C-alpha cells in the first residue's frame, strides 16, 4: 500500500482511471481516521487534547493500491480536484433525458422488445 502526498495521489488516481477504461474497476474508499493507535488516542483524550482527525482516502484498481490522508486545511482543494477527475472519467454512464426516453420507447416497440409496457 503506497501512501502518497495529495498531488501525486491525484495523478496516480487519474492514471488508474485511464488504465481501467477498457477493462477493470476503480475503487475509492473514504474513511475518517486520526492515524494514531487506540493507545495514543486514549492518552490524548485523557490529557484533554483535541484529537486531530483526517480523511483517509484509498484507491485501488484491484492490483495496485494508493492512499493519502487529507486534513481539514486541504480537504476543499482535494474535493475540487477529485470532483474534476471523476467528472472527466465517468463518461460511460448513460445520459437520461425525457426526450430520449420517448425515443427509446418507440425504438423498443419497433424492435419488438417492450420491457417497459407503461412509461410515457
Amino acid at each position, binding site marked *: 500500500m503506497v501512501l502518497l502526498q495529495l498531488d501525486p495521489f491525484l495523478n496516480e488516481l487519474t492514471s488508474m*482511471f485511464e488504465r*481501467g*477504461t*477498457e*477493462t*477493470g*474497476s*476503480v*475503487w*475509492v*474508499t*473514504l*474513511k*475518517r*481516521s486520526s492515524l494514531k493507535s487506540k493507545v495514543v488516542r486514549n492518552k490524548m483524550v485523557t490529557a484533554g487534547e*483535541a484529537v*486531530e*482527525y*483526517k*480523511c483517509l482516502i484509498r484507491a485501488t484498481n484491484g492490483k495496485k493500491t494508493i492512499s493519502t490522508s*487529507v*486534513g*481539514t486545511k486541504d*480537504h*476543499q482543494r*482535494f*474535493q475540487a480536484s*477529485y*470532483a474534476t477527475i*471523476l*467528472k472527466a*472519467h*465517468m*463518461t*460511460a*454512464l*448513460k*445520459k*437520461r433525458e425525457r426526450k430520449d426516453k420517448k425515443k427509446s420507447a418507440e425504438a423498443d416497440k419497433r424492435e419488438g422488445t417492450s420491457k417497459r409496457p407503461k412509461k410515457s
Partner: protein
Amino acid sequence: MVYITSWDEFVERSVQLFRADPDSTRYVMKYRHCDGKLVLKVTDNRECLKFKTDQAQEAKKMEKLNNIFFTLMARGPEVDLSEVTGKEQTDVQPTKRGRGRKQ
C-alpha cells in the same frame, strides 16, 4: 447487501450512519468504465447501505455526496450540513481552531 433505490434515502441514511459512528463508518465507491456502472457503499461494519446506478445524472448527485462526506470526515460529525453550503460552515467547531477568519 441492501440496495437502496431512492437517492435521497441513501444520502440521509448514510449521513445518519456516519454521525452515529464516525470512527468505523466508511464510504466506498466502485466504478467500472467497461460496464458503465457506479456502485456506492456506506457501512459501519454492522449495517451496510448500497446504491448502484448507470446514470450520468446520479454521478453528479454523487459528487455532492462526496463533498458532504469530505466535510463530515475532515471537520467532524457535528458539522452543520446545509447541502448547498456544506463547505462554508466552518463555524461549528470552535474547539479546534481559534482563528475565526470568516467573519
